[in-house]
């Protein structure tokens, strides 16, 4: 069955080097090298990833939900090196262990998923709880809604965010509105829809999209995008247990490239809260998902520009203190953290991979200009994908890479 599916589904086989993926030992704690072919080499050296046990256990806002020691203690807790897909898998394993009603389903999830996120779950929990569905996205989400309406925990997977649109009706007209329209009698709070998102270096039109903006106006839905393994596990567990339907979008290029020490215990991270990753007073850079690392690189480049572009970076700016914020939850977004930051810095650059027109950045900049009007010293700047489909061979010039972010920071600082 699996063989047949794979053969008939070109869209997954091309994208990921399955052969290479099979060489990985799934339960291994050994980190693998990041994919050199990707456009996010900065992930390999990122200081934002927690490489030791102590910093991992002291992840801000971490909420221990297991039975073990009290919710604040970190002593006696352990971590293990995981990449993002292993952390996602770990979260689902914990959710299913603790909750007998939890099931995982979607296209090709039973053999481990095309991105390995469900590796071994079918063996661990049985095919009754981890199973393949026919290739029908509207069916997958509709099915998950039915499960959740009965109070069960439904963890559905849409193979790529690019293919979530057939389920748009079920998500927007149904999942998001069921609690409201039934006067609170019914709800689908147990529904979480996971989907890989953002560009991967060679995904072309339909393996690269960032559709979070389409869903941002959907009252009743939550949208969460993690940046790292610790975040993926904590936010996914938070999403699965949140009493509202959640769209959980996993930046697919980080599945293997982002590696850090991840607490092995059950914990969650709060939804609706942004996280300040680097503190600064001169300018705020706000982003989420993959571009977090491009922003980090851009900040390094500002402080120490490589010789090839040195002449474009005024020396007066090189000691600028840039504040970097990871939004994490797109809906409802953390306006308080962003407003506080921009009121302090007076400058804001928003970075996202999706196109500019009516992207998430549009909503945020409108709110910020309303709230920070007197404090703004430069126009809110958006660095985004262009308003084009994502052409395969043009990707390097489409995505907001570190150079474009750096340029926007420089222009905003010199405005």
């Amino acid at each position, binding site marked *: 069955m*699996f063989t047949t599916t794979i053969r008939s589904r070109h869209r997954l086989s091309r994208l990921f080097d399955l052969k290479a993926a099979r060489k990985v030992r799934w339960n291994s704690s050994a980190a693998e090298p990041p994919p050199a072919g990707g456009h996010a080499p900065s992930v390999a050296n990122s200081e934002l990833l927690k490489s030791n046990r102590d910093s991992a256990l002291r992840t801000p806002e971490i909420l221990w939900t297991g039975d073990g020691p009290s919710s604040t203690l970190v002593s006696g807790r352990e971590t293990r090196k995981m990449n993002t897909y292993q952390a996602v898998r770990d979260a689902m394993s914990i959710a299913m262990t603790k909750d007998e009603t939890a099931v995982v389903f979607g296209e090709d999830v039973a053999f481990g998923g095309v991105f390995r996120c469900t590796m071994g779950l079918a063996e661990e929990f049985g095919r009754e709880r981890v199973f393949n569905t026919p290739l*029908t996205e509207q069916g997958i989400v*509709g*099915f998950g*809604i039915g*499960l959740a309406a009965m109070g069960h925990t439904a963890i559905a997977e849409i193979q790529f965010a690019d293919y979530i649109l057939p389920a748009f009706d079920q998500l927007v007209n149904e999942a998001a509105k069921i609690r*409201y329209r039934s006067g609170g009698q019914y709800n689908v709070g147990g529904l979480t829809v996971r989907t890989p998102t953002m560009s991967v270096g060679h995904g072309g039109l339909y393996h690269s999209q960032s559709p979070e903006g389409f869903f941002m106006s959907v009252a009743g839905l939550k949208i969460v995008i993690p940046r790292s393994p610790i975040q993926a596990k904590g936010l996914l567990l938070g999403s699965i247990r949140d009493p509202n339907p959640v769209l959980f979008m996993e930046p697919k290029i980080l599945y293997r490239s982002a590696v850090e020490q991840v607490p092995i215990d059950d914990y969650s991270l709060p939804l609706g809260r942004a996280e300040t990753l680097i503190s600064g007073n001169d300018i705020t850079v706000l982003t989420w998902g993959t571009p977090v690392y491009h922003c980090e690189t851009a900040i390094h480049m500002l402080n120490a520009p490589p010789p090839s572009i040195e002449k474009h970076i005024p020396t007066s700016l090189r000691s600028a203190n840039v504040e970097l914020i990871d939004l994490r939850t797109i809906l409802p977004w953390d306006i308080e953290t962003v407003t506080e930051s921009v009121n302090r810095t007076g400058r804001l650059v928003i970075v996202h991979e999706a196109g500019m027109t009516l992207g998430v950045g549009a909503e945020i900049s409108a709110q910020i200009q309303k709230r920070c009007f007197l404090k703004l010293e430069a126009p809110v700047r958006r660095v985004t994908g262009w308003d084009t489909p994502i052409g395969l061979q043009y990707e390097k010039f489409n995505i907001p890479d570190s150079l474009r972010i750096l340029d926007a920071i420089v222009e905003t600082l010199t405005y």
Partner: protein
Amino acid sequence: MLVRSVLSRSLRGSRAFATAPQLPSSPQNGRLPNTQSHIVSKLQFFNSVTGGDQQIPTYRVLDGAGRPLDTAEMPDIDEAFARRLYENMQLLPALDNVLYNVQRQGKISFYMTAYGEEATIIGSAAGLANDDEVLVRHSTIAINAKYLGQYREMGVLLWRGFSLDSVMGQCFGNKEDTSGKGRQMPVHFGSSQHHFHTISSPLATQIPQAAGVGFALRRTPERSGKNVAVCYFGEGAASEGDFHAGLLMASTIPSPTLYIARNNGFAISTPSSEQYYGDGIAARGPGYGIDTVRVDGNDVLAVLSAVKDARRRCLEQGRAVLVEAMSYRSSSIRVGHHSTSDDSFAYRARSEVEDWKRIDNPMVRFRLFMESKGWWDSTAEEELKDRQRKEVMKAFKRGESLSRCELKDMFTDVYSGEEPWNLKEQREELSALLRKYGNSWEPWKKELAKFTNQGKELMKD
């Protein structure tokens, strides 16, 4: 079961890959990886599901004059149960009559009568367990006939004891609207207590959801093997992609889900000949590998038997089953064919037996059957009509007089848990506007008066 079917399929697949190719010398050796199909050497196209030009037959128990067909096996019903069936069937037009008339008086925004599906709805409701999970969406969609299908299926709720006050509460959107706090358009009922999932307008979306509900029932120890998910839809909704998705899901991921298609020949103005080219909806069931039956939807006893047996198959197989009820409503919209109609039907029915169109009314047919048993007569009929009319009017007047929920409920139930800042801010913005204009701007003032508490809970500082 799931595991077994997957295993057997993959075994079949691997055997096909492992075996050296054989020459197709006889029908038996047609081993293809994805089918157990035989190999033939004669080119032959096929079309009908039943073979030849035969259409799928329609199961019927009573003829148009209420007489049992010779070979039919009668469902085991006594007088009390028959009366209950008939009274519930009659309650639907009784509601129609009142609501249609008050709509003409402008007391509710819209209403529309529809006859002909009483037997399908009440017969099927009676064939289910009262705690089977029901999902409904209307069968038809158009600006001025939105409520047609859903309204009929409210009969399932009435059968289960949903009160007329709750019906009126929803239609008026008053504070007793337990279905949805006045948020949805009329006839979007729902009641978790009665295992009736709240109706919504988008067509067919409930069809894959029902598969998920069925799967959840199978996974709930105290309900596994006892309850099924039941999903009603019209033949128009079966054209939506969600129909395909739903039947596919409920058959492939075994889920005890009973699909009841009401085929009344029309989706608003579109006749079924423009809806599909095949043999109705029933012909699609076998394509999904599920047990399927077509039943005369104007014969309440046939529907009862078919649904009972379909339900049994659902539970036994743990998989989807499809029932197509043909109710051949002669016209899709019959506005104005109102309160006096069924009084006259009763008399005409006996005198004009040859007029099948007139006599093929589900209520008349069953009434004639009850009369032949000595279970019903014109006195009982008059008494029932009178009683139902009074009950409906009483509930109507009550529903009309009640105020709406509190205005603050416009903002509740969007999310559970912590209220997002945007909702908080927007509610405060409205509050400020109400404080500023609520007592002076006439259109708002008039509207505020309709709410419990007149919006004061929002206007206070």
